[in-house]
């Protein structure tokens, strides 16, 4: 187990290395932070002097080495626009994003799993069709639109919770649902499908032919196999949250997280800050995948050792 874990951690670190290197290529080879920060009509002299000021006139290999060694100690460069360390700005915002992801994951799991079980339990009955209908609707609606609908109906009309910002638990509810509904829809269908498939397998049929009830068979015979897929799928939804949903939803709800920081930085032409935010979010994705692998390994020891 320890050997396996060490291997997985090294592999994860490798992915972070490759992703950040790709980011570096985009931000330093194809263009550079100085050019981005200046208006298009800026003169050659302006560009050159700003490049020199940011140390971008040095050879690329030196810059790359600087970038990598900075990465190791958590130095992600200096935000040009805000003249502060980019890592400081990003890590200030990270807890808000993590709270949002936690809230959305709670909505996903607490809605998705029971709906999936319900649908499998009453396969091809009304509950099954109702859950399918919910899933189709939730995955088809853009999350930011769901966000605005929730604002229009629940915050503006009914005034149950605050509309924007992040003040306390109540303000977490709407953005969590805006993100979590689609994920819950997908998770419900996956759970349903997993259970239904397992129930058709001969060993489950045998168990039921021996007089064990459908519910007993679901819980005592099919649960382990479905659980592994459930964890994988939940992990996948969490990575989607880090890489997409939170960015959009933070903009909708003026949520002070990393995603909105990145979007604001783009409009401030602050390439270093965008780069820092993206590197941190990508690292979150890799960490999530690592945690999912470990969880799956604990559930099912047959997970391959590669």
């Amino acid at each position: 187990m320890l050997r396996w874990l060490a291997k997985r951690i090294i592999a994860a670190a490798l992915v972070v290395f490759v992703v950040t290197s790709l980011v570096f290529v985009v931000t330093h080879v194809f263009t550079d932070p100085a050019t981005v920060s200046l208006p298009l009509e800026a003169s050659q002299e302006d560009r050159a002097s700003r490049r020199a000021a940011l140390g971008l006139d040095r050879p690329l290999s030196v810059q790359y080495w600087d970038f990598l060694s900075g990465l190791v100690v958590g130095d992600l460069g200096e935000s040009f626009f805000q003249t502060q360390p980019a890592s400081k700005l990003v890590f200030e915002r990270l807890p808000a994003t993590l709270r949002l992801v936690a809230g959305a994951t709670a909505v996903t799991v607490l809605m998705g799993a029971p709906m999936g079980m319900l649908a499998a339990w009453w396969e091809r009955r009304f509950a099954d069709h109702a859950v399918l209908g919910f899933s189709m609707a939730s995955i088809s609606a853009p999350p930011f639109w769901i966000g605005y609908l929730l604002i229009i109906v629940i915050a503006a009309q009914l005034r149950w919770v605050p509309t924007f910002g992040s003040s306390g638990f109540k303000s977490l509810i709407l953005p969590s649902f805006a993100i979590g509904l689609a994920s819950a829809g997908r998770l419900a269908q996956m759970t349903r499908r997993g259970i239904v498939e397992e129930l058709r397998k001969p060993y489950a049929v045998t168990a039921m032919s021996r007089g064990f009830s459908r519910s007993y068979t679901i819980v005592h015979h099919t649960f382990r196999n479905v659980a592994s897929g459930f964890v994988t799928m939940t992990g996948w939804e969490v990575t989607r949250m880090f890489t997409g949903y939170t960015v959009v939803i933070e903009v909708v709800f003026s949520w002070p997280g990393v995603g909105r920081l990145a979007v604001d930085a783009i409009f401030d032409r602050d390439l270093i800050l965008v780069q820092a935010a993206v590197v941190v979010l990508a690292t979150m994705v890799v960490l999530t995948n690592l945690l999912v692998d470990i969880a799956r390994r604990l559930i099912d020891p047959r997970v391959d050792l590669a």
Partner: protein
Amino acid sequence: MTAVENPMDPADGAGTGDAAPPESVTVMAELRSHLWKSKAGISGIVICSLFVLAAVAGPWLPLIKDPTKQSLPDRLTPPVGWGGTWAHPLGTDQLGRDILARLIDGARISLLVSVTAVIIAAVLGTVLGLIAGYMGGKIDTLIVSAADVQMAFPGVLAGLILVAAFGPSVWLVIIVIAISSWMVFTRVGRGLVFTLKTSLYVEASELAGASSRRIMWRHLLPNLVSSLITLCVLELAAAILSESAFAFLGFGVQPPRSSWGLMIQQGRNYVTGDGWWIVTFAGMAIAIVVLGVNLLSLWLQSFNDVAEREQIVLERPGG
């Protein structure tokens, strides 16, 4: 249905290919007869057709106003039923432009971006998958690793960094959507080649001395087609959603051109006051079209499932 993008299931697509070359005529006939019995399939086709019609023929449709014509006295006119008139059935936006006209106009950019992106992703991904599956060895390892890295660095993140570096543009959005979905096609293509590689007729033509490139084109590709079409539809839904998200963030189409995501961005300051309809109808347009595409894909999948199920029920050895 399940996931719009399902990265963990390469076997999914691999299972749907038949070992024998498809007889396209019968398959089409069966698809059609299955369609008429499926409410999901019919609704999906109808919605998608309306979407394409709006995108292609939008400006020539009768009774549709000029989507760019501003009229400040008419600004924020509510839709019919909320105090509005049939002059603007869905109301007007903050500049007095007709929302219905702008919705129809926005369909074009959604269709253009999403379809182009999916085509690029499908072609690129499938070719890489075929190469990886057929060549094996180091090339295979390289392509699979690239797909794995891509999984850890998907969609909006790649979009953020590229938009930050190169500035917003429609083409960038197309490229970003394409690079965040190619690996799905690669996995399916590769998995399918692996199963087919061992099947008899490929072995036979290898014995007969056919070149490997010819084997790929003549024998393997037709088998890929049915799974790939299903996958394209699935990815199209994801692409339309991505396009709307990028437009919403302001990374895609720039004003005065219009897109559904951009309409929501521009209408968002009015959601809590007088103008909830801008965001509501624009989002509804996205949701309905994506629902149509998802229904279509649900139907395509259920068609495969039914075929499979009948085989299980009726061809189980010994009864």
